[in-house]
């Protein structure tokens, strides 16, 4: 069984009768059993997946209308709710939490006959960029299991890269879809803020986070955007995408387009291999008739501090609900005073979550808000102005997705500020709400490098054209696992 099919290839094969959903899903489950002991992408596997695929096959055989996913096996980051199944956020705090409803993205995929093969690993409550902060242990990079797969949607990227599913859903608060996509050599997309509903995504920093697909190809991303985008009455931040067909015209090219290379993202601290890959990507884009030149976005230097200040503040608020009264686990109350009970119950949070909650209490607090939180909002506002100004001159912006190569597990875990700086190229899209995509571009010393493209808000469709052009220049080796 060829598990390396893209989503569009899978649909064609099943539609044309060359492949049954049941056979493919069975082989996928076998693959998970075989390799996930090493990679640890999955937190749990859906025992009914094969049965659900059989039902799709029956629908096809009986001539009933079948959804556009045709029984395609997908994985889902474990901070997105699937009704009546565990949603742990990779936290001991929610170890036995059963989601009472489907996230909107899940409802939409169920309507299209997708099969969810399992929930995948993440940094606890999506706070991290290596998956090392999962309470259930880190995921491993399929290109080299000694290295981090990126995060926080590390399980999603690993599962797609290692052929444990056809595509996955992740969430991106500061690069959490694009970073692991880059580290695992798959496509990761962060849409314009509001393009995809967040209803049913467990909140971390809701003013900037978005659900996004992780796929094998850019066309697959367009395929999933056709399903996932659109207004949702349960999420008032959603925007009307006007029923766009994101696949339509994706091959039209980028001739005559102007592309800005963000100077601050290729400067100090960049790995020489990443810089070389970026220069090569720029040459390839120029080869399609695009005009590329370097631009400066001054506020990029302050974006990481702004990002962590804002997200910590929102995390402090969003995670306040985990007091073991409304959500939590079995923990007897006898012998505790009210505040000490909550403090004790919260010791189930992992270290990174605790750090960010403390930060989230500190930076907006009376006496400190002016120095930290309000200044962070002002940086966000100025950064947005600078980026929108840049898009008056350029159609796209380009930079490496991550300025360094994947690093070894444990290498940076004790240095939170060093970890902060890994996010420097990705947080811009979240702070400004613009769409951004990471395209697999190169392999250096056996480790992947992704290139990031950005477009102005609501120009997601145009962005996919540029990403498709770049992708079409690349032929990368298969993952060695």
């Amino acid at each position, binding site marked *: 069984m060829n598990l390396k099919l893209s989503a569009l290839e899978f649909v064609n094969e099943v539609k044309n009768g060359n492949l049954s959903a049941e056979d493919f899903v069975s082989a996928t489950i076998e693959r998970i059993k075989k390799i996930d002991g090493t990679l640890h992408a999955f937190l749990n596997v859906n025992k009914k997946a094969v049965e659900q695929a059989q039902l799709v096959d029956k629908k096809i055989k009986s001539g009933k209308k079948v959804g556009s996913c045709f029984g395609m096996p997908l994985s889902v980051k474990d901070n997105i709710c699937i009704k009546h199944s565990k949603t742990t956020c990779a936290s001991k705090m929610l170890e036995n939490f059963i989601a009472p409803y489907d996230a909107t993205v899940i409802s939409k995929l169920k309507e299209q006959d997708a099969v969810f093969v399992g929930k995948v690993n993440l940094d606890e409550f999506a706070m991290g960029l290596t998956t090392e902060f999962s309470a259930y242990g880190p995921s491993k990079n399929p290109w080299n299991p000694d290295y981090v797969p990126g995060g926080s949607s590390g399980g999603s990227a690993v599962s797609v890269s290692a052929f444990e599913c056809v595509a996955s859903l992740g969430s991106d608060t500061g690069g959490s879809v694009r970073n692991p996509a880059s580290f695992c050599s798959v496509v990761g997309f962060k849409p314009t803020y509001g393009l995809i509903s967040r209803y049913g995504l467990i909140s971390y920093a809701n003013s900037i986070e978005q659900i996004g697909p992780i796929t094998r190809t850019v066309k697959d991303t367009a395929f999933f955007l056709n399903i996932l985008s659109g207004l949702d009455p349960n999420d008032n931040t959603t925007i009307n995408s006007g029923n766009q067909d994101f696949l339509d015209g994706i091959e039209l090219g980028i001739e005559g387009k102007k592309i800005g290379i963000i100077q601050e993202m290729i400067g100090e601290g960049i790995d020489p291999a990443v810089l070389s890959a970026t220069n090569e990507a720029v040459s390839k884009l120029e080869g399609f008739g695009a005009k590329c030149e370097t631009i400066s976005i001054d506020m990029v230097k302050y974006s990481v501090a702004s990002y962590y200040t804002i997200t910590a503040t929102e995390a402090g608020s969003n995670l306040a609900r985990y007091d073991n009264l409304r959500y939590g686990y079995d923990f007897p109350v006898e012998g505790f005073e009210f505040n000490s009970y909550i403090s004790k119950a919260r010791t189930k949070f992992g270290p990174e979550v605790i750090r960010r*909650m403390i930060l989230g209490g*500190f930076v907006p607090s009376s006496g400190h808000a002016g120095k930290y939180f309000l200044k962070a909002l*002002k940086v966000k506002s100025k950064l947005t102005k600078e980026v929108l100004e840049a898009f008056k001159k350029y159609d796209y912006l380009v930079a490496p997705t991550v300025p360094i190569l994947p690093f070894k597990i444990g290498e940076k875990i004790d240095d939170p500020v060093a970890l902060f700086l890994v996010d420097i190229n990705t947080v811009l899209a979240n702070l400004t709400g613009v769409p951004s995509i990471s395209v697999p571009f190169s392999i250096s010393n056996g480790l992947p490098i992704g290139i990031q493209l950005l477009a102005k808000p609501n120009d997601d469709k145009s962005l996919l054209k540029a990403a498709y052009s770049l992708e079409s220049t690349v032929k990368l080796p298969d993952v060695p696992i």
Partner: protein
Amino acid sequence: MVTEEEIEQVSKLMKIDVHDHKEFVEKVHSMINYFDILDSAGVEDEEFTIKDLPLSCLRSDKHIPYEEKLIELLKNYKGTFVRAPKMV
């Protein structure tokens, strides 16, 4: 410069109790110190706006009944009542 005592006070107010207190305080301290970079951003005169959402854009305020079976997922329930922890 933030003091470690200030961080300890915030942890207490956030109802967060950590075993390895010194290590947590040191790491949070280094994170907050990094945020001092915001002082050199020169954004003092910058305005920031918060997007207003008119009421007409919000979903209608209709009661959506929950699925009765959900209560069965809870451990401490009797009929349609759920037992919550008794707090002092």
